[in-house]
């Protein structure tokens, strides 16, 4: 089954595909061919694993959260520590894979879109490491909000292009990156940051992120001898969740994807694509998205910039439809509370994105048995969120 999706047309059941301007069909076929070749080339696979180990710091730890476990008096809580990855999140796994692929394809320029800047920083990082030119598209509103990450990308040598179309956020940056790719696909590689976009991107990103789940499985079995009862991961585009879930899809573990409910899924301000969205096409892929009755894509909201995306990877849409993964949504406030609890109990300040996964786990774990176990994917560290946290916690700490 692990090989079953996507099919040859890039479909995960009803979802996926390539809904792109004709100009991109050539480059996507070229990419697909190169990818198929490389993913079966032991040399390439070895290089990818070598870089992950010697540069990115993998394997990342599996941490037993003893104090949290004591606190909830339910199932044993384990954390997969993607926050320990170089540049502070799982994003780099994928950026490394794609950058190596770009090099093998002879492309010397990469394009990336970014919202909060995490994927932009990861892309700028691999561009520096592998000697590629890098152009990052970022909404002008996000550039204003994420000044530090913009500077970081520039320091890494990347060019940051301000996108003023639409609302000047991630969705618009992605549109613009795709448009730029349309016009420059000859010598540019488009390095997408999540399991979204046209085929073969969702598959490729998943395959470069499944290292999370592969490592977790091995580490977990080493410590606990059996697999966790439940596995939690936050879902923006869905790459950290897909990377974590994929190797567990056929196992007995229950998989839970956690979306951002923002100010509440009954308000207009959320980013709970599966909980509240409907099927459609966004950024080249058939999937669930947030839209109005005329099929115009709407602006999502979440306190966490990395979850603030109106679409979701097509494989998630499929796993949702086939009920292989349970999807829940968690509000800003719930995520912040979970972030604070983890910080004070375990000395780990997670990314606000990751705190969504924590919050859902914390809702469930008290009702589980002490001989059960759960695994939470800590997709990134909270350093990038300090300004936001100061604003929200200033009075509490």
């Amino acid at each position, binding site marked *: 089954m692990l090989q079953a999706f996507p099919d040859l047309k890039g479909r995960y059941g009803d979802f996926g595909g390539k809904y792109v*301007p*004709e100009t991109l*069909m050539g480059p996507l076929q070229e990419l697909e061919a190169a990818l198929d070749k490389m993913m079966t080339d032991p040399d390439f696979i070895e290089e990818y694993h070598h870089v992950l180990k010697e540069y990115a710091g993998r394997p990342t730890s599996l941490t037993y959260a003893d104090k949290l476990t004591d606190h909830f008096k339910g199932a044993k809580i384990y954390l997969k520590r993607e926050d320990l990855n170089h540049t502070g999140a799982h994003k780099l796994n994928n950026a490394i894979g794609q950058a190596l692929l770009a090099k093998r394809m002879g492309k010397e320029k990469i394009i990336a879109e970014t919202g909060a800047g995490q994927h932009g920083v990861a892309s700028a990082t691999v561009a520096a490491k592998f000697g590629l030119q890098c152009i990052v598209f970022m909404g002008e509103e996000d550039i204003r909000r994420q000044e530090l990450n913009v500077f970081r990308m520039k320091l890494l040598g990347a060019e940051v292009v301000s996108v003023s179309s639409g609302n000047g956020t991630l969705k618009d940056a992605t549109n613009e990156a795709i448009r730029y790719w349309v016009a420059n696909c000859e010598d540019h590689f488009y390095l997408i940051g999540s399991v979204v976009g046209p085929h073969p991107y969702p598959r490729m990103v998943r395959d470069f992120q499944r290292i999370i789940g592969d490592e977790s499985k091995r580490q977990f079995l080493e410590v606990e001898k059996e697999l966790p009862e439940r596995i939690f991961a936050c879902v923006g585009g869905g790459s950290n969740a897909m990377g974590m879930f994929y190797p567990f899809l056929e196992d007995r573990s229950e998989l839970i994807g956690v979306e951002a409910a923002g100010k509440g899924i009954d308000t207009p301000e959320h980013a709970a694509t599966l909980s509240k969205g409907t099927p459609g096409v966004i*950024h080249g892929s058939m999937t669930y998205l947030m839209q109005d*009755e*005329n*099929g*115009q894509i709407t602006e999502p909201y979440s306190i966490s910039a990395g979850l603030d995306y109106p679409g979701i990877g097509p494989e998630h849409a499929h796993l949702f439809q086939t009920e292989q993964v349970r999807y829940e949504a968690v509000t800003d406030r719930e995520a912040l509370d979970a972030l604070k609890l983890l910080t004070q109990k375990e000395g780990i300040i997670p990314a606000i994105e990751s705190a969504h996964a924590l919050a859902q786990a914390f809702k469930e774990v008290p009702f589980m048995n002490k001989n059960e176990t759960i695994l939470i994917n800590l997709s990134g560290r909270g350093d990038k969120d300090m300004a936001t946290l100061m604003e929200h916690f200033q009075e509490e700490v």
Partner: protein
Amino acid sequence: MLTKTSFQGKLTKTDNLFIPFIVAGDPSSEFTIQFALRLQEEGADVLELGVPYSDPLADGPTIQRAAQRALRAGMSLRKAIELVPELRRKGLTIPVVIFTYYNPVIQIGHEEFFQLLEENSVEGLLIPDLPFEESGEIRQQAEQKNIEFISLIAPNSDQRIKQIAEHAKGFLYCVSSLGVTGERKDMAPEALSFIKKVKQYSQVPVAVGFGISSNEHVKLVRSHADGVIIGSKIIRLVEAEIENIANGKADEALDHFTIGVRELVK
């Protein structure tokens, strides 16, 4: 193709085509009609009626702005389709191609969508983010309803050129920033061989679009292809009149627009 489609019926010639693009509802339905009529007067052979979309992946900033204006004016896919009979009533006789991204179509649903197209006598359909491989069902439904599904083709379509060209309906939209911009006096050799290749396989007129923004471009394209598609440049001519329109100087706006179009396609 035993019976002529209404698109074919309304197309008065098959070469030297002028195919302008405007956005429905930019800046209002009323003016869309007026601009369309002016375009017909200036020799348009087909009207591409764009449906505004929030995330137009294949469009540059000019068309994005037009879409924003139209969305603010309340335009939608349904309303754009329903504008076609209005256009007819006001005297438009050339075939109309509805240009829409795929997502709004999904929301209406294929069946209802084609029913709408049929009820409103739309002659053609173009969905820029529905490439050949994803458009099987739509192409079939379009054929059933006698609506021409316009295909796009690009220089990097490579081995797919033959397949796409052979299945083309209405006219073939060659996407091309074919080196016609700037000072160049003739098309790049690759561009020429691309058009030649397309024409070799195509049963329908081959029109070239993307980045055509001056009378020189138009002439150059006409000398090699069966038609020229002009989008952004036409939109800019509309955009230039927004202020006049806002100030109630409608006639002045339309006359300026006519002069601009005439200059472009002379």
